[in-house]
Each structure stands twice: as C-alpha cells, then as structure tokens.
C-alpha cells in the first residue's frame, strides 16, 4: 500500500528533475544575453562613465535625478509616443483595410497577397534610401508628383522641418510595417466560418453590421496581440528613424532609442545613457505586462 502511495510523487519528482535539465540551456542562454546586459545597464546607470575609456566614478542616483528633472528624457518620451501612436494607428488601419480587401474574391488576389509583403521584407537601409530619394526637396519624386497634381505649389522640405519630418517618419514606418498586420489579420479572416456571414445576412444585417457583429469580434483577440506586439516594436524602433532623420530636425524626431544612442556615443555619457535606457525599459514594461496578461488569459 505504502509503495503505491509514494509511487506517483517519486515519478513526479523524476519528471520535474528531467524538466529542469531540459530547460537549463535555455535559462543559461537567456541569462547571458538578457539578464546580464540588463543588470549591467542598471549597474552602469549608477556611474558617470566616459564612453571611450569606460572609466568613471560612482554617482549613486544622480543620473536618475537628471532623468527626472531635465527635459531631455520627457520630451523624447513624448516624441516616442507620438511616433508610436501615429505609425501604429496607420499600420492597423491600412493593414486591416487591405486584409479585408485581399480577403475578397478579386482576380489578382494571390499576386496582390505576395506583393503586399514587399515592404516588410525589404532591408530597412534600402527602404530608407528609396524614401529619402522620394522625399528629397530638390529632386524628390514626391514633391514633383504633388506639384503636378496641384496639391502644393512649392517643393516641401519633407525631412528637414516640422511637422513634416514627423509625418514623414510615421508614413514610412506605417509603409514598412503594415504588411505584418495584413498577414496576421488575413490569416484570421480565413478561419471565420462562412455560415456566420450567411446567418447574419438572413438575420437582416447589412455589410456594415456584418463587419461589426461578425468580423470584428472574431478579429478582436488577434488585433490585441498585434497592437501590443507592434507597440513594443515601434516604441523601440531605431534603425528606420536613425537612417531617415537621425532624430532631426534638431531633436524633433528623436525617440528614446535615438536619445540613448546620442547620449552614449554622441555625448560619450554612458552612465546617463544607461539610466535613460532603464527608464525606457520601465515604460515598455507596461506594454509587456499587458501582453503577458493578454496571452496568458487566451491560453
């Protein structure tokens, strides 16, 4: 009797030990590439460090005091939020719109479905080169086109003045990343059973009602995940902004990622940069907690 009673716990313990052995490599790698840099950043943020020599002295929470009292972090956070909200809304609108269109039976559907992915697969450097050429105020195709159409009568300085520069990066960001939304939404649309639409039609629902009563509720979970993921990615976007405007004019498109970079390698203040990045991480933690709670609830 006792042997039988103790058997399952022993087996369970053996499985538990096997589990630990199996996830150990992952935990090790995770610690090396994520936990170590994280702790190092927090450690660095307590020092005043000159980047080229990596020498400096302990200053306690001084860097955080500067973060809280000086304008740089907060205005950059504001810029980051404008960029994130702006480009994300456009990505969602364009992405969902195009997914709905590509879900219809249009004759060039499969061709269009592959073409839509193009911006997403394009290297950021190449995409930015193309867009800088389009945006150029001397020979840019965009100005030329807009003048031909009579929308503007003088060439606009797209990336060198505000608010055009912010509008420009938001547009390019939306263009670059909306295919992700298209693909994710399209995949979900294809799993919505056709008979739901048929039932709704019989119940007297028009196209708008069918979208809000059948399509949207079915898209809700995938949209939440897309929005959270893209919000995190857009929030920390670096290369696209750095290559397109470098944060300019002056600091008007300088998001937090660019601020951290500028502080660390432009102004050689590694300690302050580390403090900014810890601040940035705390903001992103909010998104991450939302995402984890969301996906946790789904499963």
């Amino acid at each position, binding site marked *: 009797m006792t042997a039988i009673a103790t058997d399952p716990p022993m087996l369970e313990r053996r499985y538990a030990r096997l589990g630990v052995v199996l996830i150990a490599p992952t935990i090790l790698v995770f610690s090396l590439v994520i936990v170590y840099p994280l702790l190092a950043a927090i450690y660095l943020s307590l020092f005043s460090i000159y980047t080229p020599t990596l020498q400096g002295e302990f200053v306690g929470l001084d860097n955080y005091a500067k973060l809280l009292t000086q304008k740089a972090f907060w205005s950059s956070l504001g810029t980051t939020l404008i960029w994130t909200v702006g480009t994300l809304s456009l990505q969602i609108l364009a992405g969902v719109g195009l997914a709905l269109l590509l879900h219809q039976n249009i004759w060039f559907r499969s061709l269009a479905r592959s073409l839509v992915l193009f911006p997403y697969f394009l290297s950021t450097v190449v995409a930015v080169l193309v867009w800088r050429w389009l945006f150029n105020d001397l020979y840019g195709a965009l100005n030329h086109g807009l003048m031909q159409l009579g929308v503007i009568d003088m060439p606009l300085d797209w990336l060198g003045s505000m608010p055009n520069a912010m509008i420009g990066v938001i547009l390019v960001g939306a263009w670059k990343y909306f295919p992700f939304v298209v693909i994710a939404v399209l995949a979900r649309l294809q799993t919505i059973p056709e008979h739901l639409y048929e039932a709704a039609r019989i119940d*007297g629902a028009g196209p708008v009602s069918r979208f809000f009563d059948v399509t949207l509720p079915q898209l809700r979970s995938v949209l939440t995940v897309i929005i959270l993921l893209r919000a995190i990615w857009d929030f920390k976007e670096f290369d696209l902004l750095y290559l397109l405007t470098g944060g300019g004019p002056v600091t008007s498109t300088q998001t937090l990622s660019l601020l951290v970079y500028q502080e660390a390698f432009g102004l050689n203040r590694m300690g302050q940069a580390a403090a900014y990045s810890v601040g940035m991480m705390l903001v992103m933690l909010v998104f991450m907690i939302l995402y984890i709670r969301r996906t946790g609830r789904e499963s």
Partner: protein
Amino acid sequence: MANVTLSKVRKSFGAFTALEELNMEIAAGEFIALLGPSGCGKSTTLRILAGLEFPTSGEISIDDRRVNDLPPGKRDIAMVFQSYALYPHMTVAENIAYPLKKHGVKRPEREAAVRQAAELLQLEPLLDRKPKQLSGGQQQRVALGRALVRDPKVFLLDEPLSNLDAKLRSYMRAELIELHRRLGKTMVYVTHDQLEAMTMATRIAVMHGGRLQQFDTPEMVYNCPANRFVASFIGTPSMNQLEGRVEGGAFILGPDRIAIDRTMFRDDLADGPAVLGIRPEYIQIGRGPLQATVRLAENTGHETILTLELSEGSRITARVEAGSRHKVGQVLSLGLQNDAVHLFEPGENGARLNKEQTGAAVIPMRAQ
C-alpha cells in the same frame, strides 16, 4: 401567410449538377418536408430559397413575388442552419435577439420575445452562456430559437433536430407541429429522417440525385409511391421489390404464379418484364401460393421482422406479430394481400404502374 414557388430551378456547381429542373408549388401555410438521402440536394434547395445560393436558371417566388434578385435579408425568411451558425461572441440571449435587433425591434419587446422562445425551447438556464459552453443539442435549440423569435413569411429549417436525443427530439417534433398549427406559417423543413417527414409534414418532397421524385402528402408518398426509389426509401423495413414478368392476370416469379387484379393497374399495362412491390405488413404467412424458408427472425419487441427466401432465390421481408414463433430454416407458405400489390416498370427507377389510389388502404398520418 405566403406561398413559395420554384419553377424550373437548376443548380450546377461547375460541371456537377446538384439540382435538375426542380418544380415545386408550396401553398401558403403548408409544412413541407424535403426528404432524401445525403447529398441529394436538400440543403442546396433550401439555400436557393434563402438567397444564399443563386440558381443557375429558373425562377423562385415567395408570396407571389419573384425573389431571384432579392438578398436574403430582404426575403423575409428565417433559417436554421445544419451547422447552427451561432455567433460565438454573443450569449444565447443575444444570439436569439439578434435578428430582432437588426429589424429594429425595441429592447423590451426583444427581451419578452427571447424569454418566450427560451421557455418553449427549454433554454432559460442557458441564456447567459456563450455557444462554446453548450452541447450540440443545446446549440441547435438556440439556432431554432433565433429563427422562431421572428415573424417571417417563411421558415426554412435544415435538419433542426438531427443532434437531439430521442426524447428531446420527439418533444421538439410535437412542439414544432403545435407551433406550425398556431402560427400557420409556411415552413420548409429539410430532413433525412422519414419519421420526421411523415409525422410533421403536410406534404413531402422526396428528392434523389438532384431530382424531385414525388411531391405529395405523407399518405400518398407511403401508399402510392411514384417510383421504385420512393417505394424503397419510405418505410422501414422498406417495400419488397421482386423482379419478374406480367403475363395476363398473373405475375410470374420464377416457377411461381401470383394472381393479380388487372383492374388495379393502368390500362396500358402490357405483358412483359415488371417489378412487383409489396410492403412487409401485407405478406400473409401460413397460406398462399408461395413457398419460403425463414432466414432471419428479428424481434423488435412489438413486432417481428422475418427475412424469407423464396424458392427462386430472392429475399423478402415480412412483418408479423411479436408473439409468433418462427424458426430459422422453417419452410412456410405465404401469400400477398392482393389489394396491396404495386407494379413498377423494370429498370433502376421504374415508375409505378398502378392506378392512382390503389395499392393499400389509406392510413391517415397527421390530422390536418
């Protein structure tokens, strides 16, 4: 009250023809069962009536109005889907109320209608649940409720009871009959269950391979089947069909001669190959010209079904009282009740050769 007409309706999916030349006139207030084996085109017919599928050719009208070009929402119909098609994110109550909401019915009236439907369908304890939290049968009742709350011209029901257990099914059968009597609405009811069709419908449309085989009252479909398919499809066990030939006043079956009354049959009945049909209940055991060996005796409790082998080799089934003791291997003599004989043309789906009302005493099925 609205009548429904299908005239010369054809439907093909690519090269495959699902419906061929369907003509059907349904009077206002009728309860029509579309009955037939799987894949015969019942759902397709219903979906064409609903406007979810367009006929390749032909005309459809509801309430004397051509509806070919009307979208489903404008045809004033309610439908129960074979696959339920409940809105997954809405509760049971919201699902049932949805068509009312889309037709601009005010909230208090909606709630009253939902309560009434829930009571009828025994759904009250489930009103706050989501479809995912329901069993198949419960979902089916919600789908039924969503159709019943409305006041449409025509109800279209695609196998609405197929997933219910036997008890609930017979309860719902009675409820639907009662509901039809009370509302007097035209109903088109798809089923492959002949018991449902026989007990509920005012008329049955028997379909096979995309063609309408017979469109008549349950009594007529049972007693005067139009052809061999209807004869074998309606009734369990199905009608015995024996291939032989007509010669004068007799049907020749191998070595045996069965006397027939030629006045029962069409005047153009000629001598030659034919098929004799007789239902198992009209086979008289113990007297008659035929010899048969008992091969199988199945006692169902209230009756016994005998499978018998005739001397020339073909098998027939006979329905006898439960108490009767017949042993496998026993040789019996048997006869056919003369006024219950049908003759059909030979061939896979030969037409019936009887004069209209002959073949069996007419049994009333459902008091209209």
